[in-house]
């Protein structure tokens, strides 16, 4: 019997006697790496389907990192630099200038060593370890971690091939843009965090239309698993089509509702859709069973917009729908999110607490910082979700309006 799957000779993966059992979980492997390196933390980031961003896949010693630093552009920050140069990077003293992930800093990580995970010529991701003291790593450590990263690469490559869950995640990720093409005057960032052990039907979208309108979308298909992800993909593209034809978000959602009721009976989804034209200070939103957006202005505390909520999609095709104008001043911010961010199953000691209201409040607080949308997303996830297990998947999108400089001179 011939081995059809063997790589052409010369490109065969290095025959490393694997240190880890094939079924070992990523956190178990990382824990082993942490012990071998004598470090406090160990983290793996994997390259995503767009090939331009890294996503935190697992971490030990730093429980909040996985969620807080979901996605880093290659080239930016510490891990991004490792991926770009494909060389070990040692940071003797961690500062906000050389590390993007504020959670690392918050947890007291003082020095870092990162190496690329490659198999043959293919970059799979980045492995990094951290210590709570400065000057924690030298060149010998870099060599040792590189060897471990090579072994990890072989394990991960096998897993990529085998794991249908990763395949399903890839489907979902391929539908969720990691970077947006947006017009000048507005910046947008978003994150998707799959539920622990399962994926769901959350999505976000941001796109410009030929007539100049900008659309912001967030939605949640009820249910879990591959089926929800597939329905999500259909709704996402149907919504884009209806947005080409209809200027009122309520009309778009009415058509989308008819589409679900007719073609996807038994499926339900919540959607929030907003349109605006430059300079993007006047938004028209329509909500189908979805949380209203949070609006932050430079002058007052962020708060949910006053927005009537119409029934979710899939209940009845004739459901009446409304649109509402939401004003966002220049320098202000809009945050769209799915219920996974704020919903919590009540614990034994939570009697009487409105956990959702409390979480929305802490989300508002997290958004009350005048920084870029990427950081706002990271802080929203770190502060609101924190170390809580993600039982439901989470999508969050943040748009910030640039402070427009007057286009006349003498603007002092």
């Amino acid at each position: 019997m011939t081995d059809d799957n063997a790589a052409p000779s010369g490109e065969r993966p290095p025959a490393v006697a694997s240190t880890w059992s094939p079924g070992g979980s990523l956190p178990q492997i990382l824990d082993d790496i942490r012990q071998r390196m004598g470090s406090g933390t160990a983290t793996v980031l994997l390259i995503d389907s767009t090939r331009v961003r890294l996503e935190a896949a697992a971490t030990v010693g730093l429980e909040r990192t996985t969620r807080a630093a979901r996605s880093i552009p290659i080239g930016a920050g510490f891990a991004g630099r490792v991926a770009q140069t494909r060389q070990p990077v040692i940071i003797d003293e961690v500062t906000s200038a050389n590390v993007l992930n504020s959670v690392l800093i918050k947890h007291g990580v003082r020095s870092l060593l990162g190496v690329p995970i490659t198999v043959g010529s293919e970059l799979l991701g980045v492995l990094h370890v951290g210590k709570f003291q400065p000057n924690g790593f030298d060149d010998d450590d870099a060599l040792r971690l590189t060897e471990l990263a090579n072994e990890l690469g072989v394990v991960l490559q096998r897993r990529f091939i085998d794991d249908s869950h990763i395949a399903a995640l890839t489907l979902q990720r391929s539908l969720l843009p990691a970077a947006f093409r947006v017009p000048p005057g507005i910046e947008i960032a978003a994150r998707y965090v799959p539920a622990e052990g399962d994926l769901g039907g959350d999505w976000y979208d941001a796109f410009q239309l030929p007539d100049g309108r900008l659309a912001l979308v967030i939605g949640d298909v009820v249910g879990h698993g591959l089926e929800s992800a597939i329905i999500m993909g259909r709704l996402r593209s149907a919504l884009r089509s209806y947005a080409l034809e209809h200027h009122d978000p309520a009309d778009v959602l009415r058509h989308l509702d008819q589409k679900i009721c007719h073609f996807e009976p038994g499926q339900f989804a919540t959607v929030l859709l907003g349109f605006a034209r430059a300079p993007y200070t006047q938004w028209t939103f329509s909500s189908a069973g979805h949380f209203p957006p949070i609006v932050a202005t430079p002058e007052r505390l962020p708060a949910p917009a006053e927005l009537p909520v119409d029934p979710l999609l899939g209940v009845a095709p004739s459901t009446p729908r409304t649109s509402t104008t939401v004003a966002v001043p220049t320098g202000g911010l809009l945050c769209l999110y799915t219920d996974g961010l704020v919903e919590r199953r009540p614990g034994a000691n939570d009697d009487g607490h409105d956990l959702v209201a409390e979480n929305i409040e802490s989300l508002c607080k997290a958004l009350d910082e005048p920084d870029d949308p990427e950081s706002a997303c990271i802080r929203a996830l770190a502060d609101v979700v924190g170390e809580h297990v993600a039982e439901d998947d989470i999508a969050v999108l943040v748009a910030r309006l640039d402070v427009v400089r007057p286009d006349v001179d003498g603007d002092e």
Partner: protein
Amino acid sequence: MTTFQAGQAEGANGEPVMVVSGDLDLASAEGFVESATAAAADVSVLHLDLGDVTFMDSTGLGALIKVRNLMIERGGSVALVNISSAVERVLELTGMSDVFHAG
């Protein structure tokens, strides 16, 4: 986490009421639809007491809407005779309060 349970009781006018308690979520949604479909077999209005539902997620809501749509297809309806604050909040957040209270 509170275990999901479904049982039968008698309403103020002698009508059968399906009493649901615990978490109505991904784990219990299918069981809920089955129980409700069985309870709805002989009635045109399915009375549901959700007063002791401790938590309802979107899958639980989907199950509730499925049961409602099933009844409407048959020319019947669902009447919520009692709802917990957990259920009320989800219905409000998803714009479903009127849909169920009118039904």
